[in-house]
């Protein structure tokens, strides 16, 4: 068996910070299963109190868009500047915009 197939599976780690509303990808690590991945993530990525919640996803379960489809996928949005809400005058009385 080649060394690579004896290695523990790779897990992608997502941590929600104390103020955060969503989990953010922070990195990846190896672990034998989900429970150990959560424990390892706790030790590797939250030892400075970075998080309140951890998600782990086995990397092989992530399906990604392909680099070669970047053009058809994303370029058509380039000339649709009206999709940004930047054409409105904000009244003086509105705060926190």
């Amino acid at each position, binding site marked *: 068996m080649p060394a690579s197939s004896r290695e*523990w599976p790779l897990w992608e780690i997502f941590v929600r910070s104390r103020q955060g509303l969503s989990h953010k990808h922070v990195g990846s*690590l*190896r*672990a*034998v*299963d989900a*429970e*150990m991945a959560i*424990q*390892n993530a*706790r*030790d*590797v990525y939250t*030892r400075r109190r970075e998080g309140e919640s951890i998600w782990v996803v086995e990397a092989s379960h992530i399906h990604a868009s392909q680099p070669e489809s970047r053009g058809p996928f994303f370029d058509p949005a380039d000339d649709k500047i009206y999709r940004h809400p930047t054409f409105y005058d904000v009244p003086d009385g509105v705060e926190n915009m």
Partner: protein
Amino acid sequence: MTTATDIDRKSLTEYLLRLGDTSLILGHRLSEWCGHGPVLEEDIAMSNIALDLIGQARLLYTYAGTVEGEGRDEDDFAFKRDVTDWKNLLLAEQPNGDFAATMVRQFLIDCFNVELYTSLSKSTDTELAAIAAKSLKEVTYHRRHSGEWIIRMGDGTDESHRRVQRALDDHWIFVDELFETDALDAAIVAAGIGPDLKSLRPAWDSMVDRVLAEATLTRPQTDFPRSGGRTGSHSEYLGFILSDLQFMQRAYPGMEW
């Protein structure tokens, strides 16, 4: 801060050193893995746990120094006592061996610590209760970590099962000492400062048995339990640990950096 007054300072100091010494020696043993862990993630996990334990020892030593009232601080307790002055459990000072041995030693003590600190967090000594409440969160995580490894190694490959069973068999002679009591413990119990250690055994047994069952491991038996750590009679390993731990302060007394 209210210290229980119906126990003398010397006894309470001694009791705090017993607690602190086990934490420091176990923490030191784990720190020996730093840079040598089987994988990076586990190396960090063991170092984190070592730091928790050393942190517990610092709090306990500092409080012991206050109770004793002779001006000793955490460093004096850690660096300026010889083997027979140390009161840690024999189990804590046993060598790391392989990863299975380290996790077995850790798991047996973690299970004990969870019961101990649960009880100490209700101590009549408010300072000790506060230290215990903080430590309880840490040791609860330690037990989860070591317990999950025991399950995975026991219910893993033939080799991992063999190694973890052997580690259990080897360390079982040090288990009874965890629950051993003497006159000092009786005074501590009478003052409401700490639990009767014997009373912690049923909960420890049921937790250990539950994990061993899931790990398909056999609970060992021993006819020759070892003890003496709490009164300063140690295995040959402690001297080597101290020569490592205390080298700098022995070679350069009072050195700071």
